[in-house]
């Protein structure tokens, strides 16, 4: 049994991600820990989006809403903890619980309305709802409005883990990424996941077999929202800052790009996509101030020519590798 190059590359990527703080400390560039920390958080968001976009076929253009909800839970919590001395509001466990609950509720409401529609309507409606939440945050003067809210402390995990150390936060992010990947793996291979994938390929057929398609989709929508809300909590702690920009509609677009760039409907695709996206951004913006001038057309080209994303290319590599070995074996015989 030969190790396939795809599995090899993905394993190396995950190990490298796990080792980033050690390497960054080793070469004395703690900046990289922060950069890769952002990748991990956005990976979690992308993994959750992939659950509905890749496996469920629902093109949600408002997924950054949950990043915003999670971020604002931390922002508002620590704001009251610092300003009014309400200690429990700084507790990280409570932040996470509330973020998951509120995101799930928001997902339930948005999903219940928008899943009544199909295709392009669905895209526009999820986008419109995201914009609505964005404007609510902009209009909310008490918590900074348009300017946002600086965090004077990070979520407090009662001495269990100290988030003010960047490396601890990194490993918390990493742990949650692994957790969300595990969850996604279990979910998509369960009966529920199979049904969801079935609704993607043929909705009418699933409906006539007797599956309540709407309910399955809604549950997936809510789960994806809840996971992404958690990513929002981590994101606020990472940036020490919360503003409506977290849920700007372009952020939702970025999440979709990560999922598609990495590989739609694959387990590790979103992680690969998030890493590639941020590395590309880092690299291009280092070359020119006008980096989006190149990034935009690149996106168009990826859409037109590289259909399976990076993971699709790895699958192609696997095939080539297999053929190569078969040929070699045939020659030996």
């Amino acid at each position: 049994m030969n190790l396939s190059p795809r599995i090899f590359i993905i394993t190396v990527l995950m190990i490298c991600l796990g080792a980033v703080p050690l390497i960054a400390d080793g070469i004395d560039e703690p900046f990289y820990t922060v950069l890769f920390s952002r990748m991990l958080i956005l990976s979690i968001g992308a993994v959750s989006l992939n659950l509905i976009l890749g496996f469920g076929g629902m093109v949600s253009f408002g997924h950054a809403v949950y990043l915003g909800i999670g971020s604002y839970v931390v922002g508002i919590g620590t704001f009251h903890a610092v300003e009014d001395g309400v200690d429990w509001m700084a507790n990280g466990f409570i932040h996470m619980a509330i973020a998951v609950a509120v995101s799930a509720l928001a997902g339930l409401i948005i999903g219940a309305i928008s899943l009544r529609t199909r295709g392009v309507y669905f895209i526009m409606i999820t986008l419109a709802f995201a914009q609505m939440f964005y404007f609510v945050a902009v209009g909310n003067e008490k918590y900074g409005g348009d300017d946002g809210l600086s965090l004077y402390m990070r979520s407090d995990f009662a001495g269990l883990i100290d988030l003010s150390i960047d490396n601890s936060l990194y490993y918390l992010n990493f742990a949650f990424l692994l957790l969300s990947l595990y969850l996604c793996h279990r979910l998509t291979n369960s009966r529920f996941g199979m049904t969801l994938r079935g609704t993607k390929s043929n909705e009418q057929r699933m409906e006539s077999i007797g599956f309540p398609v709407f309910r399955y989709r809604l549950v997936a929508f809510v789960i994806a929202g809840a996971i992404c809300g958690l990513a929002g909590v981590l994101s606020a702690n990472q940036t020490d800052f919360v503003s409506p920009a977290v849920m700007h509609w372009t952020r939702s677009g970025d999440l979709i790009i990560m999922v598609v760039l990495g590989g739609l409907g694959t387990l590790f695709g979103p992680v690969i996509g998030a890493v590639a996206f941020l590395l590309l951004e880092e690299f291009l913006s280092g070359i020119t101030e006008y980096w989006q001038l190149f990034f935009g057309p690149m996106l168009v080209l990826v859409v037109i020519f590289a259909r399976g994303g990076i993971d699709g290319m790895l699958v192609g590599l696997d095939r080539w590798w297999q053929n190569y070995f078969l040929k070699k074996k045939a020659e030996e015989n």
Partner: protein
Amino acid sequence: MNWILLLEQTLNGFQFGILLFLLAAGLTLIFGIMDLINLAHGSLYMMGAYFAATFTEWTDSFLLGALLALPACMLFGVILERIALKTLYTRSHLDQVLATFGLILFFNEFVRLIWGPIGLDIPLPELLSGSVELFFGIRYPAFRLVIIAVGILVAFLLYLLVSKTRIGMLIRAGASNRQMVSALGVNINLLYTIVFGLGAALAGLAGMMAAPIMTVEIGMGEGILIITFVVIVIGGVGSIKGAFVAALIVGFIDTVGRSFLPDILGLFVSNDVADTAAPAISSMLIYILMALILAIKPQGLFPPKGT
């Protein structure tokens, strides 16, 4: 209740609705006929404003500038369609969203490169910069009246074009059954290009008319694009009539809601609460409206026939 303010805001809402209609008409046609979801429609609006700003500077006249910018926008749209969007018609909506999202990034950066990061102001001609007396001594800015007039004129011309001419007949046929139209020997690619050019010109027109009352800046098309989506969803994708009705409703509710919601809320809760809650709630109004309409009619108010 302040009646003069209400009248003024009603007119403002009407004017905003007209701008929305110009954008929505093109977008809904492009979607209805080519099945293309075009996020870059907001960029066409932005380009319209920038073209108008440049041509106004060259010719020293807003009118001449606008007249030059209109064909420029149409040409720009046609080139965009031929180069980039043509290949997307047969693709999934997800691919279209991604590719046109990439185009937005490109155009924003392109504008920043050419015109610089600072917003531009277009000076209005003397004739239009004042205000006119409507009746009972109520004055209203002349330019906003011009926007309303131009918008109604365009809506009327569009109605004539779509329902009375051969091209319009093909457009309607294309919206209800594309394969059949091409099977009957109509050059569907040419039709697509014409429709896209028309949509681009309408979006550009909206942009250049909005330019003097709002600042011309990068990303100006994005906020209004999302409201345009709301309009299309409410009106029914592919329906120009739906776009017109929904645009006026959305424009009215958004504008009037913003200025009167604090007062209306103040009737029910204390003024302090009303003042803090009103900005957030008023920006939610159109989305709530959309959710309500979708709950009753998932296809919008005027769903296209034959689907």
